[in-house]
């Protein structure tokens, strides 16, 4: 396990830092510029997407490319229900519908050989896009919908709440026997099955939980876009970027995906207006380089340097 060993003193310091950080973030909209609030909301969103993705695909090593599909479902829930129901209820529904889709997809494909799952999630996006396009042309007559408008601060707070819930859930899963079970499934699935773990159930359930947060994030983010259509809502970028962020940051530790998300969300923000295609090009290249040379991500690299600096790898072989 690639965890940094935490002494109880380190742990206390970490808790204090997290608490202070949380206080700063919660009070931020009251003294920061609107631009900062908006920017941070985007970063929160990416952290949620990346951590949720890593929650399932990290320990099980089953790569899901469905993030964008769940995100898009969340967006469309906002577009259809946003004006009819209270915002928090809509966000909840967005999460639940995404989780339901994940239960369906997972139930179908997670009992098969690993690659079928990945293949299925890859095509899911095109499927949803086509389905909704057809539906809109046939039944509603117009392409796309308008989304209810919500003020920036509300979006910020809801996104922050989803972020805290996501990270908390990820942490609790890791600490519990289910986290251990997930890890065992990723390391040696057959043995896990033989010691009483219902592998398919654990996988499907975790997949659904991760989809919940992705969907909820989509629902709240949609309110910033005022107009969405199937092309905007179901965009492969949202399946790609979280994977990139998690791999670059480091899948193993809890904060690897967080680190990766912050770095690339920031990069995207500063590059997207001037260089809309170049930044995605850069991301693609970083992905290839990361897969080739950064098996444990940035955090893994940092750990290696630290170990070398303090003289020799800790532990074994």
């Amino acid at each position, binding site marked *: 396990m690639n965890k940094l060993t935490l002494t109880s003193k380190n742990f206390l310091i970490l808790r204090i830092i997290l608490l202070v950080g949380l206080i700063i973030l919660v009070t931020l909209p009251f003294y920061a510029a609107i631009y900062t609030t908006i920017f941070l909301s985007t970063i929160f969103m990416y952290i949620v997407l990346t951590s949720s993705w890593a929650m399932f695909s990290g320990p099980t090593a089953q790569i899901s490319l469905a993030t964008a599909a769940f995100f898009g479902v969340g967006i469309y829930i906002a577009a259809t229900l946003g004006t009819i129901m209270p915002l928090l209820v809509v966000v909840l529904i967005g999460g639940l519908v995404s989780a339901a889709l994940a239960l369906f997809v997972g139930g179908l494909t997670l009992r098969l050989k690993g690659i079928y799952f990945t293949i299925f999630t890859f095509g899911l996006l095109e499927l949803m896009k086509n389905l909704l396009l057809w539906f809109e042309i046939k039944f509603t007559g117009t392409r796309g919908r308008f989304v209810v408008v919500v003020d920036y601060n509300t979006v910020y707070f809801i996104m922050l709440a989803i972020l805290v819930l996501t990270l908390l859930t990820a942490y609790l899963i890791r600490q519990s026997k289910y986290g251990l079970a997930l890890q065992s499934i990723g390391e040696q699935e057959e043995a896990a099955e033989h010691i009483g773990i219902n592998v398919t159930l654990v996988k499907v359930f975790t997949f659904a939980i991760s989809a919940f947060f992705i969907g909820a994030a989509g629902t709240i983010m949609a309110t910033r876009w005022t107009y969405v259509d199937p092309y905007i809502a179901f965009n492969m970028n949202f399946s790609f970027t979280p994977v990139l962020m998690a791999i670059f940051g480091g899948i193993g530790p809890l904060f690897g995906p967080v680190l990766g998300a912050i770095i690339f969300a920031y990069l995207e923000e500063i590059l997207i207006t001037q260089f809309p295609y170049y930044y995605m090009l850069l991301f693609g290249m970083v992905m290839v380089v990361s897969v080739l040379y950064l098996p444990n991500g940035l955090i893994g690299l940092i750990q290696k340097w630290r170990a070398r600096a303090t003289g020799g790898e800790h*532990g074994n072989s």
Partner: protein
Amino acid sequence: MAILEGEGVTKYFGGLVAVSDVDFHVDQGEIVGLIGPNGAGKTTLFGLISAALVPKPGLIRFKGENITGLKPHQICRKGLARTFQSVKIFPNMPVISNVALGVHFGTPERVTSAQAVEEAARLLEFVGLSAMAAIPAKDLTLVNQKLLEVARALATKPEVLLLDEIMAGLNSTEIAQAMELVSKIRAQGITIFMIEHVMKAIMSVCDRIMVLHHGKKIAEGTPQEIATSETVIKVYLGE
């Protein structure tokens, strides 16, 4: 009373028959050995019992109940555990977590993390691995990894334990220790069905031995009977 039995158990892989119409039974409290030349279908038979594979056709009964078609995790929870010929420990987890997982999920009872760790520690002591509790499983020697697999299987509170060639690759001291462990496990009331190539071990520790060849059962009896059986000798020498 037969705690584990199979009727007409058969398995084809493509056009090749791996196990062919095998009837077997293991009585409560016995240690039964399963021997045969390489490729005889022994591990396949274990796979069929533990539900990693499904017999077609054939029937397997555990404590009188038909368990054919159940999933491996269900069979484990009913009280049947196994080890693997190519050791399948969880490499990146500490030894104690490997066993604790078995405690957590191997039985229908719910245990707290603390209880699981406690039970895991007890099992590690039983097999003699207490000193290695915190080490990542991949860093263990082969012998210790096999012991870990046994401890993990025992964590699921089995009534029947399937051991698949646990003595392969062990030296004579280690083999003697393994034989002792097998006796200790039986003394706990657990029935054992074991595949083994190390003849002297099988002969001394088993109550009864079954011989497979080309997927068929060709002989069955006490170690004495098997050692003197012409059919068996021919099969081993004729190879």
